[in-house]
């Protein structure tokens, strides 16, 4: 493992905001390697800076110090080597489903015939080929996020970054999407960095769960999860699952009582 270049390599990343004259440390210092092809979730108490962390890796907001490498190459601005999925739909409301998925390929100058082939492949992968002529506003929240996933996969990034992509969905849709994501991820074989506040979601989906402390964020613990894949929803009921879940719950709640912030 150590001889292989990690898909995502983060070294001593630190983020300090200036709010007026005050300096606020959002991320104390984080170093993290994500091996090729792994599904890694980040969980932490709300407001701990896990989204900030992901946005820095995506290159959307600047870091204070440290380095981010994708497959060994240092990055500091957004680029198509990292496919980003947001909590709210970032689908362009003025483009239909097909053109949304084709958009990234088009601006990157992929020729039409090739584009059509790729778009068709990914829309079929997420089972929404029949909706290619619809506008995003005509789709449900779950469908929108599946299109978003197809759009990100279509431009073939090295890694996927997902910022609570199912956070706005209802509980049932959420579980269905988790199963779907697992299937699509297994077919695409990408490395994923997945931010969530839902412990069950993290344990169900991940090979590795990274637990962040409260603000300023440091890594509290890294937990490997090795249930066989593909996982079924009833894995939730196993004792092993519940043990891991409870352990992470305890870690997060230590953080809550430590910071003494009882606000929600």
């Amino acid at each position: 493992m150590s001889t292989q270049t990690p898909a995502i390599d983060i070294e001593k990343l630190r983020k300090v905001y200036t709010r007026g004259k005050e300096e606020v440390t959002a991320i104390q210092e984080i170093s993290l390697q994500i091996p090729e092809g792994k599904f890694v979730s980040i969980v932490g108490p709300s407001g701990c800076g896990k989204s900030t962390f992901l946005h820095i890796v995506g290159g959307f907001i600047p870091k204070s110090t440290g380095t981010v490498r994708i497959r060994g190459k240092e990055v500091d601005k957004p680029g198509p080597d990292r496919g980003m999925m947001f909590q709210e739909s970032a689908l362009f409301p003025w483009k239909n489903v097909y053109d949304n998925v084709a958009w990234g390929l088009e601006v990157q100058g992929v020729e039409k015939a090739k584009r059509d082939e790729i778009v068709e492949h990914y829309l079929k992968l997420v089972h929404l080929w029949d909706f290619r002529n619809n506008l995003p506003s005509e789709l449900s929240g779950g469908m929108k996020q599946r299109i978003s996933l197809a759009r990100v996969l279509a431009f073939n990034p090295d890694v996927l970054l997902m910022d609570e992509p199912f956070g706005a969905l209802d509980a049932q849709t959420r579980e269905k999407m988790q199963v779907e994501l697992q299937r699509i991820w297994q077919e695409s074989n990408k490395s994923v960095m997945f931010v969530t506040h839902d412990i069950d979601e993290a344990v169900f989906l991940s090979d590795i769960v990274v637990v962040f402390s409260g603000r300023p964020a440091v890594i509290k613990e890294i937990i490997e999860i090795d249930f066989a894949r593909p996982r079924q929803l009833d894995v939730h009921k196993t004792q092993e699952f519940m043990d891991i879940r409870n352990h992470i719950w305890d870690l997060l709640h230590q953080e809550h009582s430590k910071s003494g912030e009882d606000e929600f």
Partner: protein
Amino acid sequence: MKKGWNIIVQYQSLIWIVVAWEIIAFMQVMPERLFPSLGKVVVVAIDLISSGMLMENLPTTLFRVFAGFALAAVVGVPLGLLMSRSAKLNDVMQPMFSLGYPIPRVALYPILVFILGLGSASKVSLIFIECLFPIVLNTYYGATRVGKIYLWAGQNMGASSSQIFWRILLPATMPTIFTGLKIALPLAFIIAVLTEMIGSTVGMGYLLSYMSASLMQEKVLACVLLITLVGYLLNLLLQVIQRKYVFWQ
């Protein structure tokens, strides 16, 4: 039957007004040339159309409206978008627009006449200035409210900054741009009529002044009717365009 009655109830206020108007006209509370019946007004309006007087004056007015309006849109939309993207440009422009917003800019018209003469140039310039304000301000506020995730998604897919500007920022701002255009177009028309009333030898505003010199109210009212109709059609045109280009709302 019931449906027809409902329509009458719904529009009763208009019916009351028309009936009241006709009663006053019929009873000759005021001399007929001061208070003509609406039927007569419509007849005169049709006469204005068929005699060609409308077509002598309407094209000039429409040219002034569209020239000033189009100029303001071509300058205002990119300016508003750029102001939302560049803090420096915004620092320079924003104070001018907030200072200029509340002042009655039509007061500049006499000076514009001094510089550019009584012809179309001064009128188009004033229409341009008037339209620029709602277009720039609405575009700017709309553009600052575009969700940053759209821009982030564009960057993420490898779009260049000009691609992000024209292919994400512009369409995403389109709904509010149209809000601005919809305020600007009637304004353009009003300013055209107003400036033509103050001084012109052709145009709808001139026709109105010319008719009012006759002291025949039915002629003036017929003119008002035609002007309203034109204004109404202009708005309709913009709505059709909006429906075509902002279909996703």
